[in-house]
């Protein structure tokens, strides 16, 4: 199967390191979310993988080969880098037909991907008349054109409406299920949590994490339970007796760490305490991410530029 392998990859622009000694692999059969704040080096890394920019040092390969060595690369790798890449005066269909011709991809694939991305009805309209969401879909259509094993999408959900976001989520899951290698960059946590199995997280060009999503969240964020009762002091006694770590919230409720609603529910029922609220707080990717970046900030120097 085809993996993307990045080894000791660095890229400097005028002395600034956009990508710094990056090493990670993107494996087939799962969606890898590529996270990091704007300017963390995600897009640069993607351009380096596609051989568009020349690395300062290190390598990026696809299935063991540098991108430039691929014959008819669109049949192996599909990429969306910039939704503005299609010329405004061309129709979507002509845009894709030119791209297909360069890799000897038959024209029927053009119609298939237009259908697949929901653009079939507007395929003969000039791209200039498209909304950002439609251009984004056209960019994804271009990425899928050669039915590639490897798909790289840079911020594909940009400009998509809620329906489009659900669509891309389903599409990404399907591509992974079909055994393809899928790398999707984003700076939106909630969105990424909805489709990614695995995460590669960058900060200032460096690798911060390369881990499965669930593992990342559980390692970073403690599960907790929120309880509200009419007898808070009795609750505190109960929790203390069972050695549970609780902190009071301003509204009088309690947050209990390292426990589950099932246990607390039984405990309170046994003690005969009235329960007004009992909520399990699911840890989110966003919390885990913020925890990671906060930890990073402790031992990285503050950025020079404000």
């Amino acid at each position, binding site marked *: 199967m085809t993996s993307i392998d990045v080894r000791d990859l660095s890229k400097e622009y005028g002395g600034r390191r956009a990508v710094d000694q990056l090493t990670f692999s993107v494996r087939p059969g799962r969606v890898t979310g590529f996270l990091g704040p704007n300017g963390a080096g995600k897009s640069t890394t993607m*351009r380096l993988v596609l*051989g*568009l920019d020349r690395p300062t040092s290190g390598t990026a390969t696809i299935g063991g080969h540098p991108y430039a060595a691929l014959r008819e*690369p669109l049949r192996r790798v599909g990429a969306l880098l*910039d939704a503005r890449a*299609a*010329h405004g*005066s061309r129709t979507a269909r002509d845009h894709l037909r030119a791209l297909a*011709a360069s890799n000897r991809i038959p024209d029927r694939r053009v119609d298939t991907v237009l259908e697949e991305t929901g653009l079939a009805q507007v395929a003969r309209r000039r791209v200039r008349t498209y909304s950002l969401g439609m251009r984004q879909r056209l960019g994804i259509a271009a990425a899928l054109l050669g039915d590639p094993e490897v798909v790289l999408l840079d911020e594909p959900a940009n400009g998509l409406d809620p329906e489009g976001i659900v669509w891309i989520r389903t599409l990404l899951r399907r591509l992974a299920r079909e055994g393809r290698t899928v790398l999707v960059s984003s700076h939106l946590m909630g969105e990424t949590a909805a489709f990614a199995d695995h995460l590669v997280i960058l900060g200032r060009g460096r690798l911060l994490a390369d881990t499965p999503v669930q593992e990342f969240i559980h390692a970073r964020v403690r599960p907790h339970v929120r309880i509200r009762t009419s007898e808070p002091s009795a609750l505190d006694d109960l929790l203390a007796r069972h050695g549970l770590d609780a902190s009071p919230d301003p509204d009088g409720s309690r947050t209990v760490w390292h426990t589950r609603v099932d246990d607390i529910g039984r405990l309170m029922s046994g003690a005969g305490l009235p329960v007004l609220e009992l909520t399990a707080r699911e840890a989110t990717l966003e919390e885990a991410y913020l925890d990671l970046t906060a930890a990073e900030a402790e031992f990285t120097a503050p950025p020079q530029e404000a």
Partner: protein
Amino acid sequence: MEFTPVLHAEWIKIRTLRSLLGSLAAVLLVTTAFSALAVADADGSDPLYSVFFGVSLGQIAAIAFGTTAVSAEFRGGALRLTLSAAPDRLRWFAAKAAAIALPVLAVGLLTGLATLLVGKSVLGASGPAWGEGLRGAVGCALQLTLMALFAAGLAAVLRSGVATLSVLIPFLLIVSFVIGDLSGGVADFLPDRAGQVALHSTWDGALGPWTGLAVTALWSVAALLAGAWSLRRRDA
């Protein structure tokens, strides 16, 4: 990567942009229209040049064509998409140049013949002979093609259509028309002047019709090489 599919793709790109088809049509229309005007006003001193006078303006349309075909790649990350489909940059640029040269050459030949027929029918016996006229028609086609390629190479270096046209058009209009007419010598070796020797009945400079076209071809090759070098060296 093979060359033919990339050339095919570049050809699709050219024929699906209205502005490019428009510049090709302008090559034909501007050249024949201004030639017709010049022929009507001819004094007989240089019958061939009065027939092909319009080339000096038609080549502006050819330059616009070559420039636009390349500069369209430098908008909104289009080049990145193009090069992700055709990672061999030199091969891609060669395909682009061929996709520019072939249509201009075809339209240029058509333009040359049309212009010649108009000129000969207006001038009659005082017009150029067939041999000389056909040399002019071929020269017209080659000159237009070479200027389109010159512009294409420059556009790849400058990475901008506006920048390319604002270098080339003032250069053609001012340097060529004003300075070029005054001074001989060095000005004769400028790309648009050198090739246009082929459009004159007589010439007295260092360059003849074919050597003149060869000098223009050198300019075009130099511009294309510079474009290829820049494309290869820089990040997309």
